[in-house]
């Protein structure tokens, strides 16, 4: 029998042929390899969320192998002596075992928690980027809505997650969650009884939260993230205005090899950040809090940062109880407003924003070019207002810690938060709108008159004036011809127009020595022979 010779060089070609015979992939694969992505650092914020989600899935699967989602009472008998002999739930006991008796378990637990914080943080920053640049406009309204739902799902994933260890802190969070459910008119007690399987806390809640945390919510996140990315892929990414860039094209790099490689490197950097955080910074030391007891709580009981705004709103709410004197009487507790209405509004208002803005501006066009925040002052103002509100609420979520550390009266902190929540957001709106208009005006000024050089010249009649470097052509008198604003950065310093060229960067040190700085500010910078000294415009 003749032995077939294996030609190694032909293997990829043969595999390719075989695959195309069966799946007809050559054309779509080429389109995929060639797809062009625009590049800007701010487009990578959402990637951080995606990459932390992958870290969450990986570390989370590890944790499930050791965690026991049960509220069965057991007695601790592990190496942590301070809790030995203490009655606790199996969930708490297995979390302690995971931290102390599983090799690398604490590291994985901390990695999971830090990745969750990073996930939520990058979602918020990514959302801010999308908002302030107007990337949510038609045709991307659906993706904006999906993004908000992703934050909401992440919020519940985080809450169910830190409730699972059943330590003193997480039990307190659960208790508050039950109170929030109870505050809902008419169905409150029924809802709480359904979730907890009867009276709080019951014996079912950890098991129910577990299945929500490891299956239902991650499933929802995974599905929506897929749709989110699919839509970005289909609609193609927005881009900043710039040379060659129009509303109908995408200017950037093809996905392979450079863009995809950069993404891979960035993923590793995000992963490395989470690993460093997990190794070096302790997070949620559950053994210090002890098992959950309905009668015990410590001060400085703060939730994870993305829940703090809600806790802050709950703290700031005045004790306005509404009574309905019908029959035996009915009550609407003050907790209902910040926790249920507040949370609802914080999610529905942003969802409605694209529609509101489009209707107000009567804007039905599709936009693929981003706007600088200064070019949409009102939107920027609304965003600044929302973020000020969020920040004050978040800070108020830690007002007891601030009061303690800075020796401020707790009641004063609460009142400062209440007043700040009403006064500061509108103030932030006004200030940011003014700043935007000022920046716009300065851009136009530079386009009309040129860059300020810092060189003062005395005219023959004794007047002083500053020399401006025109950015474009000049008329016969040497005055710059006004330029149109193109929606992108206007150079405002001489360095930006090449007065002092940047050094060519090397790996660790420059390949080329930077041009020498001028000795005296009066002597204009010179590098090479092509630049002319700035002299009198006459």
């Amino acid at each position, binding site marked *: 029998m003749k032995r077939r010779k294996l030609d190694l060089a032909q293997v990829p070609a043969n595999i390719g042929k075989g695959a195309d015979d069966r799946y007809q992939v050559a054309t779509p694969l080429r389109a995929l390899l060639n797809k*062009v992505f625009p590049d800007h650092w701010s487009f990578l914020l959402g990637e951080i969320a995606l990459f932390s989600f992958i870290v969450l899935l990986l570390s989370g699967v590890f944790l499930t192998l050791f965690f026991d989602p049960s509220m069965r009472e057991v007695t601790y008998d592990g190496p942590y002596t301070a809790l030995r002999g203490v009655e606790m739930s199996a969930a708490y006991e297995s979390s302690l075992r995971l931290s102390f008796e599983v090799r690398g378990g604490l590291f994985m637990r901390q990695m999971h928690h830090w990745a969750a914080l990073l996930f939520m943080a990058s979602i918020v920053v990514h959302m801010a980027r999308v908002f302030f640049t107007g990337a949510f406009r038609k045709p991307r309204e659906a993706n904006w809505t999906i993004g908000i739902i992703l934050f909401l799902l992440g919020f519940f994933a985080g809450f169910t997650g830190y409730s699972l260890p059943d330590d003193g802190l997480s039990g*307190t969070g659960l208790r508050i969650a039950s109170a929030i459910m109870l505050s809902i008119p008419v169905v409150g007690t029924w809802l709480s009884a359904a979730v907890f399987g009867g009276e709080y806390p019951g014996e079912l809640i950890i098991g129910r939260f577990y299945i929500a945390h490891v299956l239902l919510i991650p499933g929802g996140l995974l599905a929506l993230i897929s749709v989110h990315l699919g839509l970005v892929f289909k609609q193609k990414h927005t881009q900043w205005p710039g040379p060659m860039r129009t509303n109908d094209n995408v200017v950037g*790099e093809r996905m392979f090899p450079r863009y995809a490689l950069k993404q891979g*490197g960035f993923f590793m950097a995000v992963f490395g950040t989470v690993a460093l955080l997990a*190794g070096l910074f302790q997070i949620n030391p559950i053994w210090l809090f002890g098992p959950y007891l309905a009668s015990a709580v410590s001060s400085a009981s703060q939730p994870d940062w993305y829940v703090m705004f809600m806790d802050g709103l709950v703290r700031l709410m005045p004790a306005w109880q509404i009574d309905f004197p019908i029959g035996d009487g009915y009550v609407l507790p003050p907790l209902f407003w910040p926790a249920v209405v507040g949370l609802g509004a914080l999610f529905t208002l942003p969802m409605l924003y694209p529609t509101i803005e489009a209707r107000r501006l009567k804007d039905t066009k599709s936009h693929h070019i981003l706007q600088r925040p200064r070019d949409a002052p009102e939107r920027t103002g609304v965003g600044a207002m929302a973020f000020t509100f969020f920040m004050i609420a978040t800070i108020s979520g830690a007002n007891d810690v601030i009061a303690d550390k800075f020796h401020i009266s707790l009641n004063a902190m609460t009142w400062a938060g209440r007043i700040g929540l009403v006064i500061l957001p509108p103030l932030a709106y006004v200030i940011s709108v003014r700043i935007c208009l000022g920046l716009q005006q300065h851009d136009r000024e530079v386009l009309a008159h040129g860059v300020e050089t810092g060189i003062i010249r005395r005219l023959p009649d004794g007047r002083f004036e500053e020399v401006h470097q025109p950015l474009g052509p000049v008329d016969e008198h040497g005055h710059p011809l006004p330029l149109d604003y193109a929606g992108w950065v206007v150079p405002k310093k001489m360095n930006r127009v090449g007065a002092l060229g940047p050094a060519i960067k090397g790996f660790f040190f420059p390949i080329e020595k930077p041009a020498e700085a001028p000795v005296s500010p009066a002597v204009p910078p010179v590098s090479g022979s092509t630049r002319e000294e700035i002299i009198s415009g006459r």
Partner: protein
Amino acid sequence: MTVTHEGSHGHGGHGSGSGTKPVDVNDPKLSRFDIVREGARRDDIEIVTYESQFEGRNSKAEKRVVRNISLLFIISGLAALAFVVFFIVWPWKFELGHTLSDYYTPILGITLGISLFALGFAILAWAKKLLPHEVSIQDRHNQPSSDEDRLITGQTMAYLVDELGVQRRPLLKGAIALGMAPLGLAAAAPLIGGLIENPHKGDEPMMYHTGFDPVPQDGKLVHLTREDGSPVRPEDVSVGGQITVFPGIPGGASNKYADSPTLLVHLREQDAAEARAASETDKVNKGFMHGNYVAYSKICTHAGCPASLYEQQTNRLLCPCHQSQFLITDNARPIFGPASRRLPMLPLELDDEGYFVAASDYREAIGPDFWERP
């Protein structure tokens, strides 16, 4: 490979790739890049700039970058190896006190972090420093489908509806509504029905009863006990002091009776007189104090945290979760913060042996407020 191509760009609309002319890909004279560019052209992509960042192949600068990237890969590998070695050999079991095992998690974090960062930077440097700089323009293809296509698809969908003929056959419409709606309910029923619990069921509805209720104990009054179950005498609480007490029944201090933890306060003479005057004028709390002792539910009426910070000087009780403050000497009336309802008072008595018992259950609902609270 260096290609710079200027001009024939800056236009919108169709065919950004039209800047380059179609070529015959079977032409043996074509370089591989020519074929790649033809592929890009067919995807309406124009490769405007594609130029190496180095002058010539194997320049000194390029070699140095390659060396540095290789170094990063090697650092990554070494750190990963260190991670595995430390993972195996470093003492890791928790021990009390300052031991080597304290450094286990930080060492894992640092080695893995260095490894991943070095790998990440190696890949990033590869992409940013070694690969040619590129500017490509792709047509966005964001024009809506043609009017004809829209018409065809719309008509096709309308045709589907026509064919089903639901509009023409009202009987079917009704039958579907009547016949299918219950099936939808049947799908929802197990989930919703299984979860629903009546919060007001039984003789002892959960919202209004705690472990201090004597009825389930055959009418025997329930002792106030410490966490270990031992009953409390008046002299166990010093003047101005307070302790947390639980119902003296099996599991009374466990989370099964999460609504029962109670704060027993021994007021000073003057404060007690004030508190007594306030409680005697109240129609619910009348006669609930015992001497200078008063007991309030520890579960905050706002969000259910234990309101456990007692400030002796001002007789205020502070809930550490949302800073509601209650005045002990005035029926635990809320005086600051988001709580709108006072803490319920537990009626106190002494049994024959001189231990505290609850004269009855709380007369007001315990814990966070809810809609149907009378």
